[in-house]
C-alpha cells in the first residue's frame, strides 16, 4: 500500500527514507487522520518532509500522484523558461557553424543598429532577427562565431564578445543535502580542537599532580573544554562559466555551512578584485571591499577559493581587465595580497584536472597560488584539507 506513492516522491528527488515511510503507515494504522484527502496530505507531509524548503516540491509531487494528471497547474509556469533554454536552441552541426560568416566588429555594430530599428516584435529562431535561439548574430541562446549578447543566458558556446546585461545570479542553494555526506567527512579533516573559553572541565591529571604536590591536600585544577577552532573563509566564483558547476558547488557550500562554526563566505565573478559580495541579488548595492575583509579576518583564517579560473588572461594580468567594470589594479595583485594576508589558502577547481594544462588562465592562477590548486573532487578536497592543516 502506498509504495508507489513513496517511490513517486523519491523519483521527484524528495529526501524521503524508508523509516519515515513506515512511520506514515503506522500513523495511518493508528487512525491519526480521518479518511479525507486533506488530512492524509497533512499527515504525509508531517511524516515525510522535514524541511520547509521541500514543501513546494512535495505539493507538486502529491498533486501529480493523487490527481492522476500529468502536471499540477503551478508547474506549468516553470516550463516557458526551460523551453527558451532548451527547445529553441538550434543544435548546429560543425559544417553549419563554419558556414556562418564571421562579421567584423564594426560591421556587427552597424548591423545591430539597423536590426534594432527594423525589429518591431518579438522573434525567435531564424537567422536574421534579434531573438532567442537561431543563428542570428544578435540576441541570446544561439550560435554565431562573433555575436553580441542581449539579455538572457549565454548559450553553451560562450563566444559573445560583450555582456550586455546586468546578470541575475542565482544564490547558491545550501539546501542540497543528497551527496553532501562524503564532502562533510572530507571537510572534517580540517577540524582542529583547542581548549579555549570558560574553565568547566576537570583536569584529572593536573589535579592528581597538584594534590600530590600539596602532600595529599586536594588541589583541584580545571581547564576549558575542547572545541573545533578552525576558521574558514570561502570565496565562491559565481555566474558565467561556473553555471556548469552549480550542483557540485552547492553541495560543497551546503556541507561547509554545517561543518564549521566560524565560516564566512563571499562571492566573486571570474577573478577577485577590490570588492566581493555576500548576496547575489543585492550584489551591486551591497559590496564588501576586499581591504576590509582582509583587515577583519585575521591570518588564523584558512581560505578556500572555489572557481574554474577559466577566463581571459587579461582578466588576471591587466588593470581594467575585469569583464564587469574597470578595476584599477590587476587581479593578480589582489590575489597576491590575499595570499600575503592568509598564507594558508587553496584554490578548488571544478574543471576536470586534465583540462588545466590547456587553459592559460588556470596555469596563471596556479602559479600565483604556488600550485595549491586542487580539483573539486573528494580526493582533491582531502588533499586540499591536508594542505590547509600543514
Amino acid at each position, binding site marked *: 500500500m502506498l509504495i508507489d506513492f513513496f517511490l513517486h516522491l523519491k523519483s521527484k528527488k524528495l*529526501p524521503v*527514507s524508508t523509516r519515515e515511510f513506515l512511520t506514515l503507515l503506522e500513523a495511518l494504522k*493508528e487512525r491519526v487522520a480521518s479518511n479525507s484527502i486533506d488530512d492524509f496530505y*497533512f499527515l504525509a507531509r508531517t*511524516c515525510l518532509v522535514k524541511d520547509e524548503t521541500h*514543501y513546494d516540491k512535495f505539493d507538486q509531487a502529491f498533486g501529480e500522484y493523487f490527481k492522476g494528471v500529468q502536471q499540477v497547474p503551478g508547474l506549468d509556469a516553470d516550463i516557458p523558461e526551460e523551453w527558451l533554454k532548451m527547445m529553441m536552441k538550434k543544435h548546429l552541426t560543425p559544417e553549419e557553424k563554419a558556414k556562418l560568416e564571421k562579421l567584423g566588429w564594426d560591421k556587427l555594430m552597424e548591423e545591430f543598429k539597423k536590426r534594432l530599428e527594423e525589429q518591431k516584435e518579438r522573434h525567435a529562431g531564424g537567422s536574421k532577427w534579434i531573438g532567442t535561439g537561431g543563428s542570428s548574430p544578435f540576441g541570446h541562446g544561439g550560435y554565431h562565431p562573433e555575436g553580441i549578447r542581449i539579455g538572457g543566458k549565454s548559450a553553451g558556446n560562450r563566444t559573445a564578445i560583450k555582456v550586455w546585461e546586468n546578470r541575475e545570479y542565482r544564490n547558491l542553494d545550501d539546501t542540497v543535502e543528497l551527496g553532501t555526506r562524503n564532502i562533510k567527512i572530507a571537510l572534517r579533516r580540517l577540524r582542529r580542537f583547542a581548549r579555549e573559553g570558560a574553565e568547566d572541565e*576537570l583536569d584529572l591529571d593536573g589535579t592528581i599532580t597538584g594534590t600530590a604536590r600539596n602532600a595529599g591536600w*586536594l588541589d583541584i585544577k580545571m581547564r576549558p573544554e575542547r572545541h573545533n577552532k578552525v576558521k574558514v573563509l570561502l570565496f565562491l566564483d559565481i555566474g558565467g562559466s561556473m553555471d556548469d558547476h552549480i550542483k557540485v558547488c552547492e553541495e560543497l557550500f551546503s556541507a561547509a555551512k*554545517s561543518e564549521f562554526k566560524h565560516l564566512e563566505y563571499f562571492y566573486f565573478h571570474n577573478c577577485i578584485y577590490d570588492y566581493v559580495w555576500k548576496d547575489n541579488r543585492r550584489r551591486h548595492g551591497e559590496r564588501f571591499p576586499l581591504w576590509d575583509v582582509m583587515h577583519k579576518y585575521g591570518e588564523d583564517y584558512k581560505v578556500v577559493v572555489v572557481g574554474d579560473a577559466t577566463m581571459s588572461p587579461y582578466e588576471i594580468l591587466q588593470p581594467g581587465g575585469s569583464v564587469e567594470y574597470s578595476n584599477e589594479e590587476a587581479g593578480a595583485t589582489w590575489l597576491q595580497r590575499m595570499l600575503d594576508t592568509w598564507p594558508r589558502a587553496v584554490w578548488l577547481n571544478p574543471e576536470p584536472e586534465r583540462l588545466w594544462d590547456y587553459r592559460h588562465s588556470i596555469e596563471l592562477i596556479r602559479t600565483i597560488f604556488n600550485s595549491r590548486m586542487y580539483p573539486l573532487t573528494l580526493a582533491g578536497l582531502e588533499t586540499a584539507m591536508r594542505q590547509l592543516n600543514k
Partner: protein
Amino acid sequence: MRFEGTDSYVATPDLMLAVNAAITLQRPLLIKGEPGTGKTMLAEEVAGALGVPLLQWHIKSTTKAQQGLYEYDAVSRLRDSQLGDEKVKDISNYIVKGVLWQAFEQGKPSVILIDEVDKADIEFPNDLLRELDRMEFHVYETRETVRAAVRPIVIITSNNEKELPDAFLRRCFFHYIKFPDKETMGRIVDVHFPKLKQNLLREAMEVFFELREVPGMKKKPSTSELLDWLKLLVAEDIPPEALRSKDRKTVVPPLAGALLKNEQDVHLFERLVFMARQNR
C-alpha cells in the same frame, strides 16, 4: 489524548494533526516557523489542554546534551571528601537530574519542551538520538538505567539558525508554522482581545499586513508584535479613524514602535513615508 486547540491558542488543522500524530505515535515533534508565530507557546498550550505537567529545557550555545539527562557534580564531592562529610559515601547524592530524567520518572504523561534546539552545538541533536528514540539512558556513575514508564510528548522548536542532522530529522514529525493569513489572524486576535472594536481591528490589520509587505524589512512584524500593538492601541484608546487615513502610506501609524523592533527598519520605513509624501 487529543489536542484540539485551546481558548487562548488558535491551532490550524494541519498543526493539530501534526501534534496528534506525535502524541499517538509517541515521537518527537519538531516545530519551525518565523519568530513570534507561537512555537514555544504551543508546548505550553498542549500541556495545558491535556492537563499534564510541562518540563522546559531552554537551549543555549553552551548547552550539552548530557545536561538534559544528568550531571555529576564531582567537584563538590571532592570538597566534601576532604571535610569528611558522610554524604560523600553515596555517589547518588552528587547526581543532579536533568529535564529528561525528571520527565522519565514522572510515571504519567508529560510534555517536554526543548526550546530553540538550533542554538546548541552542531553535535547536540545527534547526542540525543538514542535517548529520544528509546526514552532511556544509562547512568554511568550509579550503573543504573533510567527508563520512561510512560513516554513523554516531546516538542522541539527551531529557528533555523543551524541545519539539523538527517538522522535526527528522520525520527521526528515536522511542522512548519506558516505565517497566519488574514482570517486566521482575525481568530487569533479574537482569542486575545474578545471585546476589540470591529472597525479598529480591521484598520489595524490592514496597517499590519501592509507593513509586512514593505520590501527590505530586516525583521517583519509577527503575530506577537501585532498583539502587543493592539494592546497599546486599546490602552491608549486610539480611535479607528487615526489608523484610517486616505493615504496611509504617507503617515507613520501611531505607536509603530511596537511593530518595528529594528532601528534600521524604522529608518527604512520613515524614509519610505517621507518619499511617498514628496511624490504626492
